């Protein structure tokens, strides 16, 4: 059979005598009918004359011998068939045993695969957990980088404004205060409040350097060169471009600063008649820068 179809009772092969049957099968199956017919014939020969005739001619004995031979053939056929069946059964049983062995082996393999699957799932879960942590960390990093970027932009924005002369309506220390105050209330100030340690220190140093750069530029002195606080650092500029309300704005921004806690900021914003006692009367750009950063940002850290 190509792609063999199972043989059923309805199959043509089983309906017609088209295959040569085995001799012992024919003798076995046909012998039953032969023996039965002869037996029926003998049974009908029970009359006296028939018995006498059959006994005399030997026909009765011949019939009996034929019946016996048919029966013997039948028994031999049965033995052959039984032997064949036993061999087939043994073969089938062996096949079943092999199938059983293979099923057991398959079960063991399936168990291994299941174990492997469980391990894989655990590893995947662990990896997912790590990945999640990593992603979270990366998210934080990205957020931090974004924050730093915004801080940098904020810083650039403020100092660009200073460079562009937007703070020219303020005194030298007022420019410094205005720039630092703007930074304190934006991304830069937020970052300073969140960060600490070396990072914060570097940021403030950078801020200080940029303030010193602008102050030295505006004041046209070196960073450690000291000039009079009242006459130079607090001196309000004059001229057409000076905004009239610039002083009031600074005073409003710095009205919560106390002279004894933040003398530089207080003096720059309020410009009092009497300068705070702790405020040096001569200051360099470096001193003003560091002192004002300290008052605005280091104080903030303790808020």
């Amino acid at each position: 059979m190509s792609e063999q179809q199972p043989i059923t009772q309805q199959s043509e092969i089983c309906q017609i005598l088209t295959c040569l049957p085995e001799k012992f099968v024919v003798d076995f199956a046909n012998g039953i009918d032969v023996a039965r017919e002869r037996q029926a014939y003998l049974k009908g020969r029970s009359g006296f004359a028939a018995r006498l005739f059959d006994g005399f001619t030997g026909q009765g004995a011949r019939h009996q011998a034929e019946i016996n031979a048919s029966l013997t053939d039948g028994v031999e056929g049965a033995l052959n068939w039984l032997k064949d069946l036993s061999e087939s059964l043994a073969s089938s049983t062996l096949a079943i045993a092999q199938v059983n062995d293979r099923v057991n082996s398959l079960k063991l393999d399936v168990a291994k695969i299941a174990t492997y699957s469980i391990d894989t799932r655990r590893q995947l879960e662990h990896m997912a957990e790590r990945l999640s942590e990593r992603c979270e960390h990366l998210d934080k990093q990205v957020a931090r980088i974004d924050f730093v970027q915004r801080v940098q932009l904020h810083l650039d924005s403020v100092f660009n404004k200073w460079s562009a002369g937007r703070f020219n309506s303020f005194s030298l220390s007022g420019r410094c205060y205005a720039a630092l105050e703007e930074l304190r209330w934006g991304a830069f100030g937020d970052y300073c409040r969140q960060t600490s340690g070396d990072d914060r220190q570097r940021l403030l140093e950078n801020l200080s350097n940029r303030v010193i750069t602008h102050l030295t530029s505006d004041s046209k002195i070196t960073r450690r060169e000291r000039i009079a606080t009242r006459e130079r650092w607090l001196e309000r500029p004059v001229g057409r471009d000076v905004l009239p309300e610039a002083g009031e704005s600074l005073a409003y921004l710095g009205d919560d600063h106390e002279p004894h806690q933040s003398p530089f900021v207080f003096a720059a914003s309020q410009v009092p008649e009497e300068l705070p006692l702790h405020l040096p009367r001569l200051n360099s750009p470096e001193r003003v820068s560091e002192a004002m950063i300290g008052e605005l940002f280091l104080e903030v850290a303790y808020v």
Partner: protein
Amino acid sequence: MSDFMKVGLVLSGGGAKGAYQVGVLKALRELGTRIDAVSGASIGALNGAILASSPSFETGIQRLEELWGTLAKRSPLDMNIPGYLSLLISAGMKMYGAGTVDIVARLANRAAQRFGYALPKGFDFLSAGVLCDKPLQALMDEYLVTDDLANGLPLYISVYRSLGGMYDLLAAFQAEFGFADTPDSEFLHLQTLPQEMQKEILLASAAIPLLFAPRQTNGTLYSDGGQGGWQSMQGNTPITPLLEAGCNLVIVTHLSDGSPWSRQDFPDATILEIRPQQSLARACGPLGGSRDLLGFDSDKIPSWIEQGYRDTLHCVGRVMSAGKSRHELRQSEARLTLSEKGNASADQALADVMAQLK
């Protein structure tokens, strides 16, 4: 089981009970059995000849049904004339002393007409012309054409070398009583004989001793083939030529209850016997056997046909059923073997994959 299968069919002799063989053939056709060669004795030879001269197995069965159907339809008024004799005469057989009987019958008829009285009805029996049934003769002329035999199934005929009707009869009596068996019949392959001899041999095979004259062929007298090897029915059940012709399955039909023919005489042959599962005897009384043989009661013919059909389905069906079981067993074993062939590769594939898991 071998793919090569050559099936032979033995049609035994048995007079009017030959109708049984029509039922056998019908059942074999229904079971899809192919017949490759036929042998016959007496009425079996005539049935076999009609089958062999037909263009197909199917047509042969139709012709036999028609022939035996015609015989079965004979008028009850003709029951004093044995149907079987009528069949043989219609086939061309001449009764022993037919010429003398015919002269006596003609003279008696002429005397009766002369003196104005009617002959008794049974007197017609003496006339061979009366015994010849016209419709039967027409069928025999149509169906028993030796020209057609050349292209038909190989046909083997059993004939008995006759030493004279009375001597043959005595030899048969001796054999029946167990004193000495009759000489064996001879088996002739009809198609290899000269055409002019074929019908002679065919009729000789059915020439009942004393009733019909033996046929002389090439200087030898042949009569009813069923007489040879009387005690073992060697001549009446001609299986030997089929085995010699290479048939590896032979279906043997018997036309007598408790036929003494024995399959044990052919230990190497695969033989499927179809024996009557009920008695074939229809007539009762001391001469009942002869009445059945000669077919006085032609209305029994349908019952023999029916019995042949049923017995064949029973006997062949039993063998087929057993063969089917064997075949299914072999098929399932082959299927198992085929299936097991894939085990090694499947196991290896799984082992390879499992090794990669480690």
